[in-house]
């Protein structure tokens, strides 16, 4: 009953316009301090101190340090002129197919995803350049914004990935293995989005096609080589076991500084304070949700909710594939209405307990959950990639959301493939971590 009231208050406060972090924290703290929720012997002061301990413990983690650092590395790379180089290089690779520029934006998003770890950062970094360029080439504005948003959602699937860091933190699953597991699914997502772009461009005659030239590829590759080195250093360092995920994020910051200042000469030291402050604030908005949700999930766990959900699911007696389908369908709905960090923190404790019944290993489930929530970033009313791309293009959410529907459809198809063909998520980690 308390848990039901807790979730009702959470959704009511979000609907009233309270920020998500506070919508999670307020009811949790309120209920914890309400007389009668805990046995009579438990003192209010002890519960108050538990709240403070939980808030602290919620973010007192070396793994979570990767969040502000990847945010900062992405911000430096974005300011340092990497977006243009990545789009030009990608355009030289795929600009010759129908919908060439749209495909180039998606390929550039995949490269940027190897640096940033955040879908919103990925969308913002490329959208400011890509949306006007696509509109100039004759693509409809809503379609252009939708393509950029779709490309941005790959930001959390191809490593590094902030939601995977959070999943690993919550479940003690290896973050490096999650990163490796997301690699091929991210590529599948990119190819699926490109297929939609090619189909639309071919059917409606969007955009212009350029002639493929190895000389052009080489020239743009030389321009972008330092930027393309960032994912190699970050992922290579993590996957080879040379550095931890958090250390790799710190190295990414210094590498990004080197590229932006010494190579591209687009960033000055005096730009750094604002960049650092801005990325710390963006990171704090995520970390604050995590801290508040620690109190929320503690209360939910104290009321035995994960076990109740587990026994309710067991009573359905579904086969593993059916249970996986049910969970994925539920997550798709949650992804539409809830922000990714909040969804992860509130649902992982419950869903991680039923992973064996779904017939998937924890790495595969972690990747599937993040991929599923990435699809939610493309769907209204709470789709962070849509928000960012609408902000850049100045178009209404509904219009871009409608244009994104075919992209959402192929993303769901790719998700289903990842669900029922485990090698897509498990082969690469097993290859690296024998």
């Amino acid at each position, binding site marked *: 009953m308390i848990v039901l009231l807790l979730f009702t208050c959470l959704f009511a406060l979000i609907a009233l316009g309270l920020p998500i972090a506070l919508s999670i924290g307020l009811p949790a703290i309120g209920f914890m301090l309400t007389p009668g929720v805990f046995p009579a012997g438990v003192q209010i002061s002890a519960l108050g101190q538990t709240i403070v301990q939980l808030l602290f413990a919620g973010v007192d983690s070396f793994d979570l340090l990767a969040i502000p650092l990847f945010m900062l590395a992405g911000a430096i790379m974005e300011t340092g002129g990497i977006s243009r180089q990545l789009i030009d290089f990608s355009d030289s690779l795929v600009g010759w197919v129908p919908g060439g520029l749209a495909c180039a934006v998606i390929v550039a998003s995949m490269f940027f995803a190897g640096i940033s770890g955040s879908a919103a950062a990925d969308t913002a970094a490329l959208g400011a350049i890509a949306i006007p360029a696509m509109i100039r080439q004759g693509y409809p504005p809503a379609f252009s914004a939708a393509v950029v948003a779709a490309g941005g959602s790959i930001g959390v699937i191809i490593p590094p990935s902030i939601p995977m860091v959070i999943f690993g933190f919550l479940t003690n699953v290896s973050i490096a293995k999650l990163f490796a597991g997301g690699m091929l699914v991210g590529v599948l997502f990119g190819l699926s989005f490109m297929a939609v772009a090619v189909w639309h461009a071919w059917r409606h005659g969007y955009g212009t096609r350029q002639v493929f030239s190895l000389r052009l590829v080489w020239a743009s590759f030389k321009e972008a080589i330092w930027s393309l080195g960032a994912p190699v250093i970050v992922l290579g360092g993590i996957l080879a076991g040379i550095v931890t995920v958090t250390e790799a994020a710190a190295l990414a910051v210094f590498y990004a500084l080197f590229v932006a200042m010494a190579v591209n000469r687009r960033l000055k030291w005096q730009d750094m304070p604002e960049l650092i*402050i801005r990325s710390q604030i*963006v990171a704090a908005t995520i970390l604050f949700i995590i801290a508040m949700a620690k109190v929320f999930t503690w209360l939910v766990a104290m009321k035995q909710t994960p076990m109740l959900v587990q026994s309710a699911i067991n009573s359905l007696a579904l086969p593993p594939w059916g249970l996986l389908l049910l969970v994925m369908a539920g997550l798709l709905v949650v992804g539409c209405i809830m922000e990714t960090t909040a969804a992860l923190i509130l649902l992982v404790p419950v869903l991680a307990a039923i992973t064996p019944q779904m017939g998937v290993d924890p790495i595969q489930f972690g990747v599937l959950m993040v991929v599923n929530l990435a699809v939610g970033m493309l769907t209204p009313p709470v789709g962070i990639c849509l928000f960012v791309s609408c902000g850049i293009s100045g178009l209404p959410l509904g219009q871009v959301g409608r244009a994104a529907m075919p992209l959402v459809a192929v993303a769901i198809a790719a998700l289903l493939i990842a669900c029922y063909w485990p090698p897509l998520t498990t082969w690469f980690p097993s290859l690296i971590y024998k």
Partner: protein
Amino acid sequence: MLQRLSQAINAAIEKVLFVIGAAICLILFAQVVFRYAGASLGWSEEVSRHLLVAITFLGGTVAYKRASFIGLKGFGHRLGPAIQRAIVVGLQVLTLACFGLIAWFGAAYTVKAAEHTSSSLQIPMAIPFSVIPAASVIFVLHVLADISGAPRRKTP
């Protein structure tokens, strides 16, 4: 007066965030370098974790001040300006109560944590814990400044 104080504190906290952000980058870079030089730093992980806690709560106050928290616009604006204003004030009062409580219990726990020391630096745990009541007091100040001032849109 309240608003000026709120802005001045926010400006100071933004500078603190810059220092913390730069410090974390340097500490973790040094951690990698020293480890491969064969002389691992014993304190770097603990310090950077505590700095992350500071980013969370102090950064949270700046996010509130800059209206950068993730959230929805809310349906109140469809019900007219008077109802919207009532909803905003109601939510502000709830927020005020929440951070007031966290500040109170946080201060009490910080005093208690002074008896314990951290594992590697051996500093009193009151130091890292103090960021929670401090940030909560700043939150209270920002919310009071908001209540006393003009209505401001809270969500992006």
